[in-house]
C-alpha cells in the first residue's frame, strides 16, 4: 500500500505492506537513522518518536495507523523543551554508548511538555519504559531537572 506520511514537516509517499512498523519505514525507507531498533516489542523505548507531539514506540506503531498524523523524529525535534533537553544532556554528558539516547530524549521532551517541573517520581514513572543498558539513568534524571530549570529561565 502507498501511504502519505507527514514526517518532520514534510510529506513523503511511502510504499509498504500493511502491518509494517513505522520504525522500519523511518529507518530503511526514509533513511532517518537517529531512531533506533532495540527490541521490536515496545519494551526498550529506543524507537521512540513523536506522533502529534506525544511519544510513541515506532516499533509497535503500524504504517496504516499514522496517515494524517504529524510524525517527528530526533533529527527534527525543536521547541523550548527539546532545546533544553538536548542542552542539558550535553551539559551533564549523559550519554555513554548513546544508542538509546534518541529515544530517551524524545521521551524526556514528552515529559517536560506535559509536566514542566517534574519530581523524581514523575521522572521515574514517565521514563520507566526507556531502557539504557549502559545505566545512564542517574544522569538522565539529573539532566531532566536541569532541562526543567532551563525552560523556566
Amino acid at each position: 500500500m502507498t501511504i502519505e506520511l507527514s514526517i518532520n514537516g514534510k510529506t513523503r509517499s511511502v510504499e509498504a505492506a500493511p502491518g509494517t512498523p513505522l520504525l522500519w519505514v523511518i529507518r530503511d525507507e526514509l533513511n532517518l537513522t537517529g531512531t533506533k531498533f532495540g527490541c521490536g516489542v515496545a519494551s526498550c523505548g529506543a524507537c521512540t518518536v513523536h506522533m502529534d507531539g506525544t511519544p510513541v514506540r515506532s516499533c509497535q506503531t503500524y504504517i496504516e495507523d499514522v496517515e494524517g498524523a504529524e510524525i517527528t523524529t530526533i533529527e527534527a525535534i525543536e521547541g523550548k523543551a527539546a532545546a533544553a533537553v538536548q542542552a542539558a544532556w550535553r551539559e551533564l554528558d549523559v550519554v555513554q554508548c548513546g544508542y538509546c539516547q534518541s529515544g530517551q530524549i524524545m521521551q524526556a521532551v514528552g515529559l517536560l511538555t506535559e509536566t514542566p517541573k517534574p519530581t523524581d517520581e514523575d521522572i521515574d514513572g514517565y521514563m520507566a519504559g526507556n531502557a539504557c543498558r549502559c545505566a545512564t539513568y542517574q544522569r538522565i534524571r539529573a539532566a531532566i531537572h536541569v532541562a526543567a530549570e532551563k525552560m523556566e529561565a
Partner: protein
Amino acid sequence: MTVQTTRRGFLAGGLAAGAALVVGFTPKGALAAGHGGAEINPFVKVDADGTLTVVLKHFEMGQGTTTGLTTLVAEEMDADWDAVAIEFAPADDSKYANLFFGGQGTGGSTAIANSFMQYRQAGAAARAVLVAAAAKQWGVAESDITLEKGMLKSGDKTGHYGEFAAAAAEMTPPAEPVLKDASAFNLIGDARLPRKDSAAKTDGTATFAIDVRLPDMVYAVLLRSPKFGGKLTSFDASAAADIQGFVDARAIANGAGVAVYGTSTWAAISARDAITAEWDFSAAETRSTPDIEAEHIALLDTPTYEARPGATLADSTAALEGAAQVVEADFLLPHLAHAPMEPLNCTIEATENGVRVHDGCQFPTLTRPFVAGTLGLDPSQVEIVTVYAGGSFGRRANTVSDYHVEAALVFDALGRERPVKLVWTREDDLAGGFYRPMAAHRAKIGIDGDGNITGWDHRVAAQPIFKGTPFEAVIVHDGVDHGSVEGIADTPYNIPAFSVGLSDWTSPMPVLWWRSVGHSHTAFVKESLIDMAATAAGRDPIEFRLSLLGDDTNADHKRLRGVLELVAEKSGWGGDLPEGRGRGVAVHKSFNTYVAEVIEVSTNDGAVKIEKVTCAVDCGVAVNPDVIKAQMEGGVGYALGHVMRNQITMTDGVVDQANFPDYEPLRIYDIGSIDVHLVPSTEAPTGVGEPGVPPAGPALANAIAAATGTRVTKLPMWENGIEFA
C-alpha cells in the same frame, strides 16, 4: 579478559611504546593534493585550516575512549579542546595494536592503560615537529615558541597548526619527545571536560553500524538452529514468496542456518518468520537448566585442578579440622547475556581488491583474519571501517568473530556482489549464546576463637571461556582457565591455608567474557563469604576486611584499604539507620583498579529498594574524572540489574528468554542514587570499564542480609526469594 598488567608489566609496556616511536611516529608526508593537510604521525592529523584530528585505535562502545585518547594528544599539543576532531583508525596491527595484546583490539579495561604513554608521546612528537617547523619559518629559536589553545606564538607572530603541518610532516620527530610534567596538565584531570561524542549522540547524527546504508544494499537476517550446535538439513521458503520486499533465502556454507534477504530489515524479518527449517540435533546441546545446575554442583565434589598456588585442598582441609566454627555455603550464578542496546549487526561490501566490513569493531586483529578466512581472502584484502558501537559489555569482542563470520557467509551466499547488512533481532541476541558462563561455587571457611580465618576450601565449576581460543596460551596454565577463577584464586586478602579447586563444565553452547569476566561471579561469592565470615566472627564487615589487608609493603593492600576507608567515610558507614534499612559493603581489585562500594537498602513489607550506592575507586591518574564516574555508575547499574533479575535458562536446549520482557533490563526507578569518589593518585592509569561491576552485586547481597537476615546464594535474586519495590 584478564591481561597480565602488573606494575612492572606496565613499565615494560611503556618502554616498548617509547621504543616503537622511532618507527611509529615516522612522518608520512603531506596528504593527497586538495586535502591540504598532513598526517604528522599515525595518531595525529592536521588539516590546512588548523583542525587537529586524533586517530583512535580503540573503538567507542560508551566507555569514553573518544574523549580519553583525545585528551592525551590534546594535552601534549595544548590544543583547543572544543576544536579537536576525532576519527577511528583503520584495521592495522602494525600501527594500532593494543600494547597489552600485541594486536588491535579493545577489552580488558585496557584502552587508557595501554595508550597513556603512547598517545601522549604521539602528541608530544607532533608538537615537537610543529614547533620546529614554525621556528624555521619564523626564524626564531624553538624555545621562543609557546602553544596555547591550538595556536603557536612567538613574540608578535601567531599561527595555527595547519600553517606548519606540511613542513612538520617532512621532519623527523625526536626519538623521545619531551612530555609535560603532571603539574602542567590542563586537560588530564579536568573534572568536567566535555565528552567528544555527546553532541552527535543527542541529535541523531552519530553513525552506528546498524545505520550504515550503501547503494544497492540488501538487508539480511539469519534463521539459526533453535539449539546450540544444530545443523541445517533442509528448509522451505515457499511461504515467504508473497512477503513484500523478500529477495531470497539461501543456506549458508557452514550449515548453521538460512540467510534471508530483503529490501528492508522488516522484509527480511517477516520473510524469516514464514520460512520453516529442519535441523540435525545429534551434536546439539539438549539439556535443561535444572540438570545443568545439578551437574555444576556435582562437579564441586571433586575438583579437577588446583587453581591457587601456595595451598592445596589437603592444606585447607587440615586447617579446617581445628576450627572453632566453619562457615559453609554453595553458590549458583546463572548464564547471562550481554544484550547491548544496539543489536549485533555487520555490513560487508565488495571492493576492487576484496571486501570492506562496516562494524562497531572491537577486535580488528581477529575480525580481519576470520572474515578473510571465511571468504578465502588474504587478511590484507579485508578493510574494516569502524563506527560507533551501541554497547558491547564484551559481546562485540569475540574469540571467533562470530557475527562477522556470519555476515561474511551471508554476503557469500548471495554471490558476493551486493552489499549485505546482517542484523540480529533482540530475540537472536538473547538466544544466541556467548553467555557469561553459569558458575557454581562451594566454600568452607574455618574461624578460630578470636574471630580470625584459619583456612578456606574454595571450589569453582564453570564452562571455561578461554580454552580452545587464540588466548588459551596466555590465560590457561596447567589446565586452569584463569577466566574461571580470577578474582578468587588471586585475591590479595591475606588468608592462610586458602585453596581453590576448579572443574570445567562443557557444552556445545558458546560462552564468552561478560563485563568483568570471571570477576563477575568470583567477587560476588568472595565478598558474600567474607561478610558471612565477619558475621560469624562477630566483627564489623569493613574492620574485618581491613584486618585481611594489613601489609603495608603490599601495594594491593594499601590501595584496597584506601578505597575501603574512603567509601566508609563517604557512605556514613557505622552511622544509625532507620528501621528496616541495611548497608552492605564489598571491595574488589580487577583490571588493576580498586573499587569499594557500599549499598544502602530499605525494606517495605519485605520489598527491597536500593536507596543509595556509594563508590570509591582508585584507578591511578584520573585522565577524565567524569568519564570514570560515569563508568562506575554504569558498572554498578549493569551489575545490579543482572543480579536482581536476569538469567538465561534452557528447556531441552532451547533458550527460554525471547526478548526484554523475559530479560528485564535495569530501569530508571531501580536505584535511588550513585555517588562516586576518586582516590587521588599519581600511579599509572588503569581501566574503569569493568571494575565498577564486581563489588556491586555482593554489596547488595550484604545489604539485604543486614536489613532482612536473608542471605542470597543463588541468582538472580528475584527468582530466589527477594522481592524488589
